[in-house]
């Protein structure tokens, strides 16, 4: 009924109710001009404060553009033209440097100017809508809201806009702007040979992406193996933790197991140690001269100065990392699966047993489907989490052992740790940005596809 009512009598009490094209089409001349001269419609109709605020914003924008913004946009297109100059000052006997253009700042200010321009367009639309709203009210003979009414509405019918404006401004400043900046870097030549302020970088279009995929190039020769190890790692890490955690939970949850609480406590203990501490101590434990190798030496399994290359042989390193990850991940899965196991109705099992189903059949037909139904979204998140599992790789092997066949990567580097090396040590920011974008694309597609196929998504509310 509520919906019907709203549609039946369009009350233009708030500017938000009228669409922008509608306001522009139906508005009178003043309303139309208000799209360009902010606040005109309000000023003409004695809504002085509201009109002035709009106008002040527009004037502020134009002052910004004239003093700074237009130049910034020009620099944004060229990314700077003047390199740093060097002049010898005879009198002082020193070399002095004239500041050249800084491509990074050109790019940054360009992005900020573009975002501000988008903001100005938005405010222009708001101004037009506000003028239209006033126009409609006058036509209908309704009272015009004063500025006081406007302020009061922020506490009442416009509370949502008031409360949301702060987080949205925050997200635009601290997430959207940097994100646009980073994405744009992928289309520039901002690498170790083009470091500002001494050197300029420029737009290169899709060259970085082409280099990443071109046949036979060193980058492609690194990207594909690193990507495949990333996927192998993510699958193994996710599946192993899930299966083993579930097995452990089943074992503990079994009817015959005594002191269930104690066992759970024992296995959850490892969660109490911060993850990075566990990882660093594992790295020491499996070091070539760590406790494991020392014990093996004492037992006479290997020679006195020999060692098993847990982290130095690529294959061993991969296996070691996956195993250590099991140690870290299993307690978490055990905890969550225990909750689900206890939630499965006991009568299902009883009925199955009366029908003469064996234990494996019960597991396959009841427990597993039930678990998968609840756990699949969780599996997807842990899969994506593992693709970007920086901690485990960085703290355990640091991506090593390094390979000369790769472009500054090691045999256990994931895309995300490779990205770290490219940006932090190699200063190839453009390649880092490319990898960031590619990882996002891969993750978004994989998780959307799998999520849409899950029972939890297709059949919300059902259990089996």
């Amino acid at each position, binding site marked *: 009924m509520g919906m019907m009512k709203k549609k039946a009598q369009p009350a233009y009490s708030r500017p938000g109710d009228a669409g922008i094209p509608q306001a522009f089409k139906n508005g009178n001349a003043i309303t139309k001009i208000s799209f360009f001269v902010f606040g005109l419609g309000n000023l003409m109709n004695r809504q002085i404060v509201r009109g002035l605020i709009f106008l002040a914003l527009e004037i502020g924008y134009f002052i910004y553009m004239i003093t700074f913004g237009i130049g910034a946009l020009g620099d944004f297109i060229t990314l700077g033209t003047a*390199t*740093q100059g*060097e002049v*010898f*000052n*005879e009198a*002082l*006997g*020193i*070399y*002095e*440097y004239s*500041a*050249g253009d800084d491509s990074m700042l050109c790019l940054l200010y360009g992005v900020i100017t573009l975002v501000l321009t988008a903001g100005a367009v938005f405010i222009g639309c708001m101004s037009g809508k506000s003028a239209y709203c006033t126009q409609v009210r006058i036509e209908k003979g309704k009272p015009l809201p004063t500025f006081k009414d406007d302020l009061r509405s922020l506490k009442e019918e416009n509370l949502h806009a008031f409360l949301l404006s702060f987080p949205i401004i925050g997200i635009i400043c601290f997430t959207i702007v940097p994100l646009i900046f980073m994405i744009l870097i992928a289309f520039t030549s901002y690498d*170790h*040979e083009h*470091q*500002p*302020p*001494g*050197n300029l970088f420029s737009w290169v279009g899709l060259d970085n992406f082409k280099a990443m995929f071109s046949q036979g190039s*060193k980058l492609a020769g690194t990207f594909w193996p690193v990507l495949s190890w990333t996927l192998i790692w993510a699958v193994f890490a996710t599946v192993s933790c899930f299966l083993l955690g579930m097995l452990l939970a089943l074992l503990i949850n079994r009817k015959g197991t005594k002191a269930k609480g104690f066992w759970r406590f024992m296995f959850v203990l490892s969660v109490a140690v911060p993850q990075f501490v566990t990882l660093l101590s594992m790295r020491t434990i499996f*070091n*070539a*001269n760590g406790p494991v190798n020392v014990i093996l030496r004492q037992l006479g399994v290997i*020679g*006195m*100065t*020999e*060692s098993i*290359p847990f982290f*130095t*042989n*690529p294959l061993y390193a991969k296996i070691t990392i996956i195993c250590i990850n099991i140690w870290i991940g299993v307690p978490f899965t055990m905890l969550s699966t225990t909750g689900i196991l206890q939630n499965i109705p006991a009568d299902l099992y009883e009925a199955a047993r009366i029908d003469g189903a064996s234990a494996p059949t019960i597991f396959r037909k009841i427990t597993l489907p039930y678990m998968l139904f609840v756990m699949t979204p969780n599996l997807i998140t842990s899969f994506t989490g593992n693709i970007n599992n920086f901690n485990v790789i960085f703290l355990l092997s640091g991506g*090593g*052992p*390094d*390979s*000369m*066949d790769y472009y*500054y990567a090691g*045999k256990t580097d994931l895309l995300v740790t490779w990205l770290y090396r490219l940006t932090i040590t*190699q*200063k190839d920011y453009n390649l880092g940005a490319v990898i960031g974008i590619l990882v996002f694309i891969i993750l978004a597609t994989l998780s959307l596809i799998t999520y849409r196929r899950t029972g939890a998504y297709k059949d919300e509310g059902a259990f089996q």
Partner: protein
Amino acid sequence: MAQQQEAFAAEHPEYNITWKTEIVGEDKCQEAVLKDVGEAADVFMFASDQLPSLVEAGAIARLGGNTEAMVKETNAESVVATVTVDDAIYGIPFTHNTFFMFYDKTILDESDIVSLEKIMAKQTADNVYNFYFESAGGWKLGAYYYGAGLSVFGPDGNDLNAGVDWNNETGVAVTNYLIDLINNPKCAYDGEISVSELAGDHRIGAWFDGSWNYDLYKGILGDDLGMAVIPTFNPDGTDHQLLGFYGSKCIGVNAKSQNMAAAVAFATFLGNEENQVLRYELSAQIPANMNASESEAVKADPLAAILIKESNEASVAQPANSVFSARYWTYANTIPTEIRSGEITKDNVQEKLDTFVKAMTE
């Protein structure tokens, strides 16, 4: 540092200086400065191998006039070369940056330490490593290849057209030698175990390190600590002297400094003779300045003696160009890493070295 700042302020009352000191290892200086050149320190100390990337980023100011003259006059030619890029001087060297050999006198004696073969052949207890192989990101690895007469980008390291000759016959021989060395159970490998731990138990014969760790080892081994020039090795039937990379630690001025004159003056002050002597007295950094290193105190110092001997007899100027620094450290370091991981074996040495040369030159 504070002492030096006060002295400088007293000498130059015309400057009104707000001091702000940040402690960054010389090896990490480039990273700290390049993060934001405009905000970085006006005067900074750095290891000379970072010079190319600092110059490339326009972060370091060229020195001229009196400062340039001082650097040229008071330092040996080889030291001046470490702060020179394309005939321009960018830094004031204040100490040597190279490594030499430490050894444990209870394990090895003076007749053993002349060659790597003798060090490795020495009969030692089961749990003792005769030698500690360290690549140090390729820094110490270079000694083997340069020792055998190979080079990266020509003998002076700046001729990009000269390419890299590590994949010739000699390079294969050196790499085969390294394979045997690294896989020898009596040789400890880079980073897998700490030298100081081994030294504490008298379990390590000889290792390469620099003067900055002298106090550490002296504290552990006391009079048992020996020091020598790095030894010879024999990869192909002849004895070659290992040649370590030589660089300097130096003082540079930020090109974006707001007070260039004051910054240069302070850098010059920090790098002058008196302050090099002071730095030697306070933190045992051997002066690069020739007059300062002629002082009685320095001459009588065994550490200084070995460092200067090493510089003269068993070192080679570390190439200083941006291509070298962008590629060498990563790719050269993969040689020992891949030997250790079993990726490089005697069967594929040639192929792997070809890959290395291609990575360095393409």
